[in-house]
């Protein structure tokens, strides 16, 4: 029994995927033939099995990427991307939901371009909240009209992700509104929420707005959750969603002020933004003491 067949058997017995997928990484790279049983299984297995196969593939794709060790969270392996689109989206079930999430969160936008037609068809046939975000990221030609049609229906007229997709696909009025919310945010929590939305929109305007706030001194201060975080971490995460191959934007690469400086340099070069105010005092994520005894 091959490692893939063994994994499928475990999923059939009700096990959920648990990392790491060591059996598929032992040679240091992914071999398509090792994964082929997953493709076959994705076509025929029940939803819970399909879901776990997709979770395994998504994790494997990230770990196999050369940028993983630096803190990258992206899937660039072509065979896995093809499996996630061609087989993962084949049925409207748990497996599709997992595929949509994996593609939306981890596939670089430029690598989704070849699948534009398939993603549009998927949204058209089975609209759902995550499918709107995926189409927003992929930005396939003609998707704006489809999103517009869906938003005209009562079911999707109030869906926030459909609105985000509309902004991503050229509705500048909506895009402007989201940028205004981001610019006007006065608390770390508000700024972080708005940053996430701008990252999901991913237009040049949205990304410039994000980069322009890279010297924000706002923080998310949650002693009740034992952490304090600079909102710059959230802004970097939103930028990294759009530039997943750029290590300077990875949270794990920010260990002192020079880390923020490198991130800024990337934004200056790539997005042409600059800042008038100085960088705020260094903070990435700070902790709060957990009471003794935890008690």
């Amino acid at each position, binding site marked *: 029994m091959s490692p893939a067949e063994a994994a499928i058997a475990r999923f059939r017995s009700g096990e*959920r*995927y*648990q*990392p*790491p997928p*060591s059996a598929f990484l032992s040679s240091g790279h992914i071999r398509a033939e090792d994964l082929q049983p997953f493709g076959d299984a994705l076509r025929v297995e029940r*939803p*819970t099995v399909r879901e776990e196969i997709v979770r395994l593939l998504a*994790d494997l794709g990230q770990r196999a990427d050369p940028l*993983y*060790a*630096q*803190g*990258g*969270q992206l899937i660039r392996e072509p065979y896995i991307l093809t499996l996630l689109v061609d087989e993962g989206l084949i049925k*409207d*079930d*748990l497996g*599709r*939901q997992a595929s949509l999430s994996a593609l939306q969160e981890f596939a670089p936008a430029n690598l989704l371009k070849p699948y534009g037609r398939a993603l549009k068809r998927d949204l058209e046939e089975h609209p*759902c*909240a*995550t499918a709107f975000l995926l189409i927003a990221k992929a930005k396939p030609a003609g998707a704006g009209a489809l999103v517009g049609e869906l938003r005209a229906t009562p*079911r999707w007229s109030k869906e926030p992700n459909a609105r985000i997709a509309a902004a991503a696909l050229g509705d500048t009025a909506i895009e402007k509104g989201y940028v205004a919310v981001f610019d006007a945010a006065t608390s770390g929590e508000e700024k972080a929420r708005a940053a996430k939305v701008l990252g999901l929109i991913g237009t040049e305007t949205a990304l410039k707005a994000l980069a322009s706030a890279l010297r924000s001194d706002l923080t998310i201060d949650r*002693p*009740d*959750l*034992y*952490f*304090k975080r600079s909102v710059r971490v959230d802004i970097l995460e939103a930028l990294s969603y759009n530039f997943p191959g750029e290590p300077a934007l*990875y*949270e*794990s690469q920010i*260990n002192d002020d020079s880390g923020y400086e490198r991130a800024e340099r990337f934004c200056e070069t790539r997005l042409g933004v600059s800042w008038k105010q100085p960088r705020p005092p260094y903070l990435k*994520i*700070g*902790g*709060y*003491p*957990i*009471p*003794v*005894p*935890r*008690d």
Partner: protein
Amino acid sequence: MGLIEDMMRSTCRLPGPTRPGASVHCALLRVTFSQSTAQTYGYDNMDTPGDVTDDHVSVKIKATTYIHVKIDGGTSTDVEFVCDNTSVAQPGAAPAGAEFDLPVNGQDPGATVLHARQKTSHTECTSININTYKEKQVTAAVMKVYDSRTTGTNLRFPHLDVSSIPTLINPKYKDAVAVLSLTDQSSGGGAFDIPYDNDRNGKLTWDIAANGGSEYNAITSQFTVAGQKVIIVRDMVSVYFLAAAAAKDATSITINSSDSFLTVGQSYPLGTGTTRETVTIQSKSGSTLTLAGKLSNNHSNGETLEFPAGGWGGNPIVIIEGTLAEDILKWTFGHELGHAVLGLADVSATESIMNYSQGWTDHRLRYKPLPKKYKAGTENQWETISR
């Protein structure tokens, strides 16, 4: 219990559009919803076992859970099951018989109400609340750490089976449609030997003013993967450092932080070895602490003032192994990641994994709002986790 008491009295009002005052003769029919042994996500009876209409069921998008149904005075052919919002959840086909598990299929995130109605008259028999959530993936990498230069840093569970932790915790996390995945940073499952114990005290010395400091940084520099991380050490001490020497009989000291966690009126250990003593803070002014009494010993610049911490939040989270039993150590992962990733607060209720103390035995995540431990108010844990 769901009970059509008015049916028992032979008449009841039709729901929906109908003539004012119209009524219909109803058969004697009683439907009871309850928790199914086959349920796949959460069920919260809100601690009101006598009233099912306030009960809450959770289910994942596109997944199926089950609710137990008992029909007195009829069978499934006499009852229709309907959700108010079918884009949130839909009941599956009811099996034949008078007692069965009804499938409920999650659709899109949201809340709705599932009704049981008499088929002919559409009269309400009972109802229950259904909540559909997108599954929240809680992922973290775990590094077990010791320093071979100091035996005191040796872990009691250096081969703690990280993969067994989700097996323990996920049956509880799934109440709120969350799933935990942990990766042991060590491919062999052992502990990492990292030379972090620079002061050789057998503990991770946490420099509070530096948000961890050099010993912590020695570990984190070896732990650069993305996402949430958890470090396990044998023991830890959290300290401020004296910013200036303090002489015997002095009534104030200066520490290296102007914004400390120290509390006026509380006592803290100052120094180490034979000159170690306990000082009580009378007042704070920036980095200067006025003491309630005179110092008994001389203390050099750089000596430590200890602050009691059971660990530190943030990323990585630091968990102290200490003398914890192995299973309590494992549950601690679920608790601390509940804070860091799920955004859940400590609660004082003892029936939750988010109870503030260790050693609890009921680890549910609940829809019923639970009183917070360190802040005013309550928290509905299912709803705190984003849909």
